[in-house]
């Protein structure tokens, strides 16, 4: 009797983060809990704010290049590419075709490395330690390849306005081909280890279903959107660089659950391998740097928007120039910010364990959200 009288309909608050291993950075989610179930979720962001947009206004165009590798450190080369494309469009610089090919090859390698890291880290969230070791072994091969070319392993600063500073050599091409063979031979292992695993299937199938309408309302892009069955990929819908020359597909999911988002990313790696192989086959000869790119770049007055498809979705740069050596304004449209905004809807009425599975499936990079 006493016990029943003391019972009240009460919810309590639980902080997921900011130092939680499954939030992959300093993201804090305030969960209102009713027992084991989540009533509301409120993401708190901004712990990693570094004022990247403001920094652009204080630096010259060249000096802002290294910042791009640090907005999203996992797919840094796509961000490099987007910024270079924006400035090139503004200044009217034409990039030689060989340089565009090199950009596509390196950027796609970087996409695979980003997806591999997501694969490993996500399964760590779900409690599987072993797959992490396998995919990091594969990822290491990419890092070695890119290290030989760009000189760095994570926060790349490789592309320059008008092209790339270093040409690729035969060793790099042979290394790329060997790598794509190696990764293809590993798909079976990944399937046996993870995709067919009964525990993994039960943790992901029909969990965190994102209906396509909701995804569109929230501006979700990238594999998270494609998992819901909408074939939207900037590389196809607004082609940039030399992507129209290549034959590749956009993998999409059916149900929009965690499993579909997982499968989409795995298939995307295969598509990236196809792009790399085609680019290596078609690689033209010629210069890698546009002629007459001034050292002190002063683009004419104007504004420009460019977008690329990163491993997490659409990344766009809106650049305003007043004809000075420094940009007047740089606005970064980052995919993870929109993708995070859909999270409270997804993890409503689920359990904490599922919330972690859903959070990981969106593939958030927190420094990118805070930027």
């Amino acid at each position, binding site marked *: 009797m006493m016990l029943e009288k003391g019972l009240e309909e009460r919810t309590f608050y639980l902080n997921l983060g900011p130092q939680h291993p499954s939030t992959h950075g300093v993201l804090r989610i305030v969960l209102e809990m009713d027992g084991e179930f989540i009533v509301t979720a409120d993401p708190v962001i901004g712990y990693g704010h570094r004022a990247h947009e403001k920094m652009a206004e204080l*630096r010259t165009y*060249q000096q802002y*290049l*290294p910042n791009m590798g640090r907005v999203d450190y996992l797919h840094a080369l796509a961000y490099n590419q987007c910024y270079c494309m924006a400035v090139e469009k503004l200044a009217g610089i034409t990039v030689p075709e060989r340089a565009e090919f090199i950009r596509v090859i390196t950027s796609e390698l970087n996409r695979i490395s980003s997806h591999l890291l997501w694969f490993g880290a996500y399964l760590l969230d779900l409690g599987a330690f072993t797959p992490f070791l396998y995919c990091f072994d594969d990822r290491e091969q990419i890092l070695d390849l890119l290290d030989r070319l760009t*000189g760095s392993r994570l926060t790349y*600063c490789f592309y*320059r306005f008008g092209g790339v500073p270093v040409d690729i050599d035969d060793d790099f091409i042979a290394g790329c081909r060997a790598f794509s063979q190696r990764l293809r031979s590993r798909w079976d292992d990944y399937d*046996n*280890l993870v995709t067919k695993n009964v525990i993994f299937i039960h943790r992901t199938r029909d969990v965190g279903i994102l209906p396509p309408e909701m995804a569109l309302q929230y501006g979700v892009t990238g594999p998270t959107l494609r998992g819901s069955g909408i074939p939207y990929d900037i590389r196809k819908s607004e082609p940039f660089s030399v992507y129209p020359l290549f034959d590749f597909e956009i993998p999409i999911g059916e149900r929009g659950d965690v499993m579909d988002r997982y499968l989409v990313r795995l298939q995307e790696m295969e598509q990236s391998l196809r792009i790399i192989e085609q680019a290596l086959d078609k690689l033209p000869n010629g210069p890698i740097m546009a002629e007459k790119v001034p050292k002190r770049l002063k683009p004419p007055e104007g504004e420009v928007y460019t977008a690329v498809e990163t491993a997490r979705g659409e990344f766009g740069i809106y650049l305003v120039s007043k004809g000075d050596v420094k940009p007047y304004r740089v606005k970064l449209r980052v995919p993870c910010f929109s993708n995070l905004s859909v999270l409270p809807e997804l993890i409503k009425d689920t359990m904490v364990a599922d919330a972690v599975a859903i959070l990981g499936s969106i593939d958030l990079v927190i420094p990118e959200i805070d930027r």
Partner: protein
Amino acid sequence: MKAYVKETLTGFYSLLAGLGVTIRYFVKPIVTVQYPREKIDMSPRYRGHTEFLLDPETGSHRCNACENCARTCPSGVITVTGVKVPGTKKKRAVTYVLDYSLCSLCGLCVEVCPTNALKFSNEYRLAGYSRQDMIIDVMARLKAQQRALGLPEEVPPAPEAEAPAPEAAKSGEAES
């Protein structure tokens, strides 16, 4: 009931298939490097901190203290001072100090250098106990290299009377 039994069996088989993968890799050679005992060579293009390129013709550096690198550096980590070579209009670097703790390794300084005096070092073990350990005296490294090769150390040109010599001397003292 039938479906339940089937699911249980396929589920159990999937676990065995996963174990099969791990067992297969268990008997393959290891892929990790046992770091403190084994070391890997960095790739030739690895971007460590910058250092002076030893010019094989002169046996010294090529820096003429134009300060292009210091100006182009996004983080302002480079301090270079030079003195005028008597009799010419050229300058010659006397000190070149790098605050590596702020460096973002973009490589713009190497690209902008008009005399190609800089290159990336292959140094990757840079752990230190204080921030002071991250301040790299590039000129001192060059001198150590010259000593190791038995090359004569360069005597900085005698400062002219009104030139920025006192400044250079002062900063030289501060770093030593």
